[in-house]
C-alpha cells in the first residue's frame, strides 16, 4: 500500500526544463517514478529525456493521463501553477517551490479544497513511498521500503531521521515533507489519517517544529483516532520568540507556537517525544516491537 503516491502515480513535472526541475526529473525517473509529462509554456512539442513536454497542464493530462503534478517553478508563478494543475484534473499536487507569498495561499487553499484535490507543500521536499515512487527532491538512496510512516515540516532533519531508521534496519512506508510555510495544503492530521488507514504503516514518526498549532491539533487527533504508535521530535526549543527560523512558518509569535506547548500536547496524548533526534529510534523501540528487535540486533 503506502500513502498518497505509489506505482500507479503518473507524474507531470511543471517547470521540467528549469535547473531544479530538470535535475530532479532525472532523479525521479532513475528511481522508477512514472514521469509521463513535463510542462513548460513555449516548449510544447519538445521532449526532455524522452518525456514529452506540453505548453499546458491540461494538454499534458489529456495526452498522458497524468494524475499527479510536481511543481518546480519560481515562487512568483507557483500559485498559478497549483491552480493550473488542479484545474487540469490532477488529484495530487506537490509544490516544492519555496518563497510563495502566504497571501496567495489563502485562495489557493480554498480552491484546492473545493475541487476535492490534495496539495502537498509549498516549500516542501515532497514525498516518497520507497520502492515504488518518489515525487520531489528527497534523496532516494537513504530510504528503504518498510513499515514506518514519517511526516515532517522540514527537509534535511527528516533525512537525518530516515537515515537513522534505515541504518537500524527499519524501512518506511511513505515519508512526507508537508512543508515549512504557515499555510500548507496537507497538515499532520491529513497524513496521520492516511497512515492509520494504510495497512503497510505500523508506526509513525512525526517531526514538528515551532510555529502555529498544527502539532497541538495533531496530538488531539492522535489521542482520539490513531492506534499505531507515534513518536515525535520538535525542533526549535532554543529559538527566540518573534524571530523567523528559516521556514516562514517557524516562528513563535503572540506567545503561540512554542516547543514547550507542542511537547506538552504530545505527552498528554500519549505520544513519546524524543529530546534529541538520536533518541527517536530508541523511543520507537519502546513502543514498536520490530524497532526493539532491530536495535537489539544492531
Amino acid at each position, binding site marked *: 500500500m503506502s500513502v498518497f503516491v505509489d506505482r500507479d502515480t503518473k507524474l507531470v513535472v511543471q517547470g521540467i526544463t528549469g535547473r531544479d526541475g530538470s535535475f530532479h526529473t532525472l532523479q525521479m525517473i532513475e528511481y522508477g517514478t512514472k514521469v509521463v509529462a513535463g510542462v513548460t509554456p513555449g516548449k510544447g512539442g519538445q521532449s526532455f529525456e524522452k518525456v514529452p513536454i506540453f505548453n499546458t497542464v491540461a494538454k499534458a493530462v489529456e495526452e498522458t493521463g497524468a494524475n499527479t503534478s510536481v511543481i518546480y517553478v519560481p515562487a512568483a508563478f507557483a500559485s498559478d501553477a497549483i491552480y493550473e494543475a488542479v484545474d487540469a484534473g490532477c488529484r495530487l499536487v506537490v509544490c516544492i517551490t519555496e518563497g510563495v507569498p502566504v497571501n496567495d495561499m489563502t485562495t489557493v487553499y480554498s480552491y484546492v479544497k473545493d475541487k476535492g484535490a490534495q496539495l502537498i507543500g509549498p516549500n516542501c521536499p515532497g514525498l516518497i513511498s520507497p520502492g515504488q515512487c518518489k515525487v520531489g527532491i528527497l534523496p532516494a538512496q537513504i530510504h528503504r521500503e518498510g513499515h514506518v510512516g514519517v511526516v515532517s*515540516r522540514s527537509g534535511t532533519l527528516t533525512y537525518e531521521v530516515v537515515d537513522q531508521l534505515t541504518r537500524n534496519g527499519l524501512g518506511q512506508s511513505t515519508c512526507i515533507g508537508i512543508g515549512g510555510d504557515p499555510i500548507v495544503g496537507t497538515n499532520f492530521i491529513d497524513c496521520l489519517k492516511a497512515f492509520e488507514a494504510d495497512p503497510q504503516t505500523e508506526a509513525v514518526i512525526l517531526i514538528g517544529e515551532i510555529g502555529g498549532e498544527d502539532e497541538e491539533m495533531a496530538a488531539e487527533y492522535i489521542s482520539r483516532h490513531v492506534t499505531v504508535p507515534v513518536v515525535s521530535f520538535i*525542533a526549535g526549543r532554543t529559538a527566540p520568540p518573534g524571530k523567523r527560523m528559516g521556514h516562514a512558518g517557524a516562528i513563535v509569535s503572540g506567545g503561540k507556537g512554542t516547543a514547550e506547548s507542542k511537547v506538552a500536547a504530545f505527552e498528554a496524548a500519549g505520544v513519546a517525544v524524543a529530546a534529541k533526534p538520536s533518541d527517536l529510534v530508541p523511543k520507537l523501540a519502546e513502543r514498536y516491537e520490530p524497532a526493539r528487535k532491530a536495535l537489539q540486533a544492531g
Partner: protein
Amino acid sequence: MKVHEYQAKELFVARGLAVPEGEVATTPEEAEAIAKRIGGMVVVKAQVHVGGRGKAGGVKLAKDAGEAKAKAAAILGMDIKGLTVEKVLVTRAVDIESEFYLGLIMDRNTHQPMFIASAAGGVDIEEVAVTAPEKIHTLAIDARYGARSFQARKLAYELTDDPAVVKGMTKALMTLYDVFMASDATLIEINPFVKTPDGETWSVDAKLNIDDNALYRQPAISAMRDLSSEEQSEIEAREAGLSFVKLDGNVGCLVNGAGLAMATMDLVQYYGGMPANFLDIGGSSNPEKVVTAMRIILRDPKVKAILFNIFGGITRCDDVAAGLLKATEQLEVPVPIVVRLTGTNEDKAREMLVGSSLIPAVTMDEAVQKALELAQGGAQ
C-alpha cells in the same frame, strides 16, 4: 519585515482613515518645530521595532513645544531592548475615554486572514489572550470574497453599542483589511483604537509586519525598510541569501536546512552549551556561501568554536567537503571547526578532511559535544 508606526499610519491615511496629525523627527529641534506646528499637547514616540516601548520609557507626553524638545532629546539615542532610537514620531495627543484593540493576522488554522478585536485595548493583547480570553473576538475572512462592511460592523458591535464608535471602528477594520491584503502583511494592528470623551474615534497606534516572501512585489513597502533598526549581521546574511538569526551563545552553527539547524541549536543547549546563531546555509555546497557564512559568524567575538552539521542528500558529502576545504583556505579562522558530514558519500568526505585542520565527527551528538568541549577550552 517590520514597518514603523509612522509608516503604517501613512498607509492608513492614504486609504482615508484619519490618524492624529504628526510627523517624524530625528533631532530634538525638529521635534520642537513639529510640536509647535501641531499646537497644544503632543506625544513623542520612539520609532523602534520592539513591543513595550511605553514601558521602556520610549513614549512621553509633552504639554508644549519646549517640553517636546526635551522629551525628544531624552528618547533619541535611547536603547530599547538592544535597539537605538533614531527617530521619534511627534503626534497630537488625544483624550482617551476608552481603548480598543483591532487587528488582523494570517491565521494558520483557518488558512485565511482573521480579525482579532477586543474592548480591552491599550494593553498587551497577548496578556489579554491569557488572562481574559473571553474578551477577545475573532472573525476569519474568506480571502476569495474579501472583508465586507457587515462583517466589520458585526465585530464592532461585539465590542461596543455606541453607534458613533461602531461607525469609526467599521471604517478602521475595513482599512486594516485593505492595507493588510494590499501590502502582503502577516500582521496589522491598531492598539489602541481610542474613543475620546467627545465621542470621536482615533487610530492612535499602528503596527504592521510584512511577509518577506512577498517583498519582491512590494517595492514601496520594501523601501520602508529601516536598516538602522536591524542587526548588522542579519542584514549581511539576508543580502547573501542566507537565513541567519543571531543568538547569545559561543558555538557558531552552520547547518543545511532550517529544521536541522534548529535541531542542532537545540542539541547544543541539550548538552549544556549555548548556540551563537541560527544559520541555514541552504542546499548547495558553494564555497562562497560558506565563506560568507563563516565571516558573519566570526564577526561575533563570543564565538569560540564553529560547528558544521551537513546532511548530504542530493548534495553529496564529498562536494560539501571540497567546498569547506576551499572556504577554510580562503579565510583565516581563529577558532576550531568541527565538521559532521553524513549521508551520500560520507566516507569519501571524511577521507578528504584527513590532514586538514577541520575536526571530524560522525554523529550529530558527537559533533555537538566536541564543539562544546572546544568552545569551553577556548574560553579558559
